[in-house]
């Protein structure tokens, strides 16, 4: 890779209290502007890896360096929308800016921009309980985008959604990543989703989690659902599936 990595993970291991070894000797470089999917079965340590990158937990060994230290440079989206139920959509999206101490005028502009990016301008004053699952995830995405992060970490964000909503949000994410020039690290258990979204798919093996295969699907810029029907897409899905099957074997996942 020519450009300096945005995130550099060097020989990182993570053993939790109680002895569970979540990750062993993980080394990964994340290039600026890249869309990396971390793919693997349950227990392969992908969520742990995201939390390590975000600085929410510390590695037991190894190091993680980011070219954007300080708060606000990383956005995080969980599998659940993780919204504050007592706050309306605008206040939820404004949460990072509020914590970072941005002034009200700037906050208003950024919230409006983030909501426009995810197509929820009309719902600024709605409360989370009035929103569908897909809309809640859009709010969560808008909140992560509001601080104008360089790196967006997404932990199975669309796993709980129906396929139609999931496909639509996948397209939205590709569009937003291009528009905002984001570096994205996306955790998923779906081979098809990873190949569709990412320009790099890292397959992780479970217990302990570690990368075992690295693919570059060559997803075309500006791709849409039609790309799913091409032979290039299905071939790549086949290759990635084989790699996943190889690490899973007959094990219970």
């Amino acid at each position, binding site marked *: 890779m020519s450009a300096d990595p945005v995130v550099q993970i060097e020989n990182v291991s993570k053993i939790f209290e109680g002895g569970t070894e979540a990750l062993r000797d993980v080394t990964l470089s994340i290039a600026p502007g890249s869309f990396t999917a971390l793919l693997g079965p349950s227990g392969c340590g992908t969520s742990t890896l995201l*939390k390590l990158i*975000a*600085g*929410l937990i510390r590695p037991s060994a190894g190091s993680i360096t980011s070219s954007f230290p300080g*708060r*606000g440079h*990383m956005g*995080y989206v*969980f599998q*659940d929308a*993780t919204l*504050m*139920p*007592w*706050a309306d959509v605008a206040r939820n999206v404004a*949460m*990072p800016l*509020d*914590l*970072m101490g941005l002034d009200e005028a700037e906050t208003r502009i950024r919230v409006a921009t983030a909501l426009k990016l995810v197509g929820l301008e009309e719902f600024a004053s709605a*409360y*989370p*309980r009035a929103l569908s699952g897909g809309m809640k995830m859009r709010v969560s995405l808008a909140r992560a985008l509001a*601080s104008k992060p360089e790196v967006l970490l997404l932990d199975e964000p669309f796993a709980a959604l129906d396929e139609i909503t999931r496909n639509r949000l996948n397209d939205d994410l590709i569009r937003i990543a291009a528009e905002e020039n984001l570096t994205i690290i996306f955790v998923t258990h779906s081979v098809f989703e990873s190949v569709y979204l990412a320009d790099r798919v890292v397959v992780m093996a479970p217990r302990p989690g570690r990368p075992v295969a690295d693919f570059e699907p060559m997803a075309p810029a500006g791709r849409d659902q039609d790309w799913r029907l091409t032979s290039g897409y299905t071939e790549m899905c086949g290759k990635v599936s084989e790699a996943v099957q190889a690490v899973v074997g007959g094990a219970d996942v």
Partner: protein
Amino acid sequence: MSKTALRLLSPIMLGIGLLVFWEVMVRALDVPVFVLPGPLVIFEALVTNFASLMASAWATLTITLAAFLVALFAGVGLAILFSRSRLVELMVYPYAVALQVTPVVAIAPLILIWVGYERIELALLILATIVAFFPILSATTLGLKSVDHGLRDLFRLYGASRWQTLIKLELPSTLPLLLTGMKTSGGLALIGAVVAEFVAGSGTATGLAWRIVEAGNRLDIPKMFAALLLLSLLGITIFLLLSALEWALLRKWHESMVKRES
């Protein structure tokens, strides 16, 4: 009739029906007033003793509200301390439980001796606070422990200070449980105040409990019922006010306030 009207009117209609039945039965069976007075005689006793009963009601209400506020601040404060230090929780919580499970009637004489009969108001306040304190402590402690871990992670990611986390995340998240604790605690503060007045006995307390004891000693049963009625009204008012507060604070977002089509 609309559902709201039915909800409001049905208990009122039942109450009126029972009062009429009570009055009719007392008259028909010629029940002596010192055994069971009818509603009209009780109302008459209320009107006759209105000034003294209202003064007593005010005294009981003052102790109740003061105890409730002290319990609220102490309970929330201690729960926050517990959430910050597991060691403090492990050390203090068993004693809070011990204080809660020991009957206030049993503690009251000791508190009265320690504080002194010349400062009876303070003794009543302490006793009522002891009774009212635990539901708030327990509800707030549970609420603070139940804060969404994902939101906690996000607050950390964006560098929130402890104060920001408390004000913008932990307290709003705890609010539904705290309000439930407050509703229980409001009623218990009144019970605590009344029990403390009973134990304090004659010549010192001035609240409604003392009026009940005094009326009982004189076999003035209508006045006893009048004082009881005022106590009930105080309890109901406290509950309704706290329910209104709960509605005002939660109606926009909490699941318990959501009206569903059935």
